[in-house]
């Protein structure tokens, strides 16, 4: 295994078990390697909960991941070039003056560049938080948080990955967002291996294939985990076959997982079947990444 090995956990569809698996693998790997866990699902960060970490964070830092334009209405002559230049339609001219819709502004700065009166200045705004703590399993957890209404989720992911480089780690686990957009792309950058998580439903399978398109774009090796395998055995086997030998293992559907997490108990501290199943996945994964 390469030094400073990075694994990203992605899925396309949400709620298929990324964080459950990430948290459990982090605990298992931490017995073997110096692990660092990253919650890169910055607009729905739940990895801490899955690790049973509900207490205070060691450190919370606000960061700026985007800028917003500020208009000097004394200088503005109402020409409207700023509104025309905005590819996101975030500026509207209302009675001759530009008004910003901050929720869709990307902070790109096009308006500032085109303004002939130099009436626009771009200023950084705090849109993200980086929360860190040493978990009770004695590995650090870095969690990225996008403040509601702010943009720049991909940049928060890049930022927490940069932050992680300050630590002496051997293995980094990155729990990504659902979807295939900017936070997922940022999660996948520079990783050595990808774990794709899915469940045997047509939706999850469809999203899995879309996620794989992005993974393949980066040319990354990957393995597959089928969660809730038993809810549809036919489709489960079909996905299994589709993966062409890349499957790392299955996890069974179990309502007790709900109960365990509702009392903040990590799966690895239960006696549930999922615990043994994840151990099997861990063993196969450890073997698979040895030669990467």
């Amino acid at each position: 295994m390469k030094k400073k090995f990075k694994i990203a956990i992605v899925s396309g569809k949400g709620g298929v078990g990324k964080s459950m698996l990430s948290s459990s693998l982090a605990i298992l790997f931490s017995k073997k390697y110096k692990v660092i866990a990253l919650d890169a699902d910055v607009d729905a960060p739940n990895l801490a909960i899955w690790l049973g970490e509900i207490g205070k964070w060691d450190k919370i830092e606000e960061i700026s991941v985007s800028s917003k334009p500020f208009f000097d209405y004394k200088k503005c002559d109402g020409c409207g070039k700023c509104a025309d230049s905005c590819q996101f339609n975030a500026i509207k001219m209302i009675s001759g003056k530009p008004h910003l819709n901050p929720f869709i502004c990307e902070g790109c700065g096009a308006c500032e560049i085109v303004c002939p009166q130099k009436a626009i200045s771009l200023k950084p705004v705090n849109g993200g938080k980086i929360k860190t703590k040493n978990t009770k399993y004695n590995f650090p957890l870095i969690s990225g948080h996008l403040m509601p209404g702010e943009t720049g989720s991909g940049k928060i992911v890049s930022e927490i990955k940069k932050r992680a480089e300050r630590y002496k780690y051997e293995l980094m686990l990155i729990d990504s967002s659902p979807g295939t957009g900017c936070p997922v792309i940022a999660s996948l950058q520079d990783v050595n291996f990808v774990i794709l998580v899915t469940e045997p439903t047509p939706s999850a399978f469809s999203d899995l294939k879309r996620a794989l398109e992005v993974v393949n774009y980066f040319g990354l090796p990957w393995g597959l985990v089928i969660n809730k395998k038993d809810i549809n055995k036919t489709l489960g086997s079909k996905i299994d076959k589709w993966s062409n030998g890349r499957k790392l293992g299955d996890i069974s559907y179990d309502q007790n997982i709900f109960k365990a997490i509702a009392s903040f108990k990590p799966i690895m501290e239960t006696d549930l079947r999922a615990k043994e199943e994840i151990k099997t996945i861990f063993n196969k994964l450890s073997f698979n990444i040895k030669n990467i």
Partner: protein
Amino acid sequence: MKKGKIRKIAISGGKGGTGKSTFSVLLANKLIKEGHKVALVDVDVECPNDYLLLNQKLRKIEKFVYAKFPKLDKRKCRKCGLCVKSCKSNAIFQAPDRYPIFLQELCSACGVCQLICPYNAIHTKRVKTGKIFATCVKKNLWLVTGQAKAGLEETGPVVAQVKKFALDFAKKKDIDTLLFDTAAGVHCPVIQALIGIDFAYAVTEPTPMGAYDLELLLSLSQKLKIRTKVILNQANLGNKKFIEKVVSKYKTQIVNTIPYSKNLAKAYSNGQLLDFKYNLKLK
């Protein structure tokens, strides 16, 4: 409701996999039974699934979505590097004394590099970033699906285009209610989906994760001034009190609870959700 006005309802929730799409279909079914003409609009453009739940195929493309990406004219470029410095997405890379390289997978298509280039060396090319599909599912029910190109960095603008298309479509077909099924989370594609909406439902589950992400979503809809009510799915599993706490903090209410049901899960999985007998009552 005023005649001619199209009602816009969003279905969101924060956490992924809580049942947004399932609830959207159940709600659509309820509304058509009440005599409404409904279009379900799938604005989870990175991972649209409503068509699978409705047993439809994405066949006929109604419209393509485009964005303008930068393209370098090497004859004019003097390798000054201003474009690299101006790019907030870090999507332009330049090795010393080389031409800049534009990385489309990181590019938000904002156009800043083109504006800043002193030599007019950056042009744009129109690139397809998404597709819009529309099908008539049954009498008085349409499905509009937005699908972003896999690996597209900035999917918010695709959502905006899909919404615009849906609104025009509704006018053409005399549709009175648009249901927008959003992506998970609270980032750009969700914000874009929620803007200009009359009312929203947040679908969640009774777990600490569900509650945490619901709070983020309710905080967003509060900022956007969108009245949002909560739907509690898989209500009999986990623990309801997590959700109740958030709901009371944001002074909203749980208007429906959906218990976990194997049959519902099966109907979901088989694309038979429309035929699933479910009496959806909303407080």
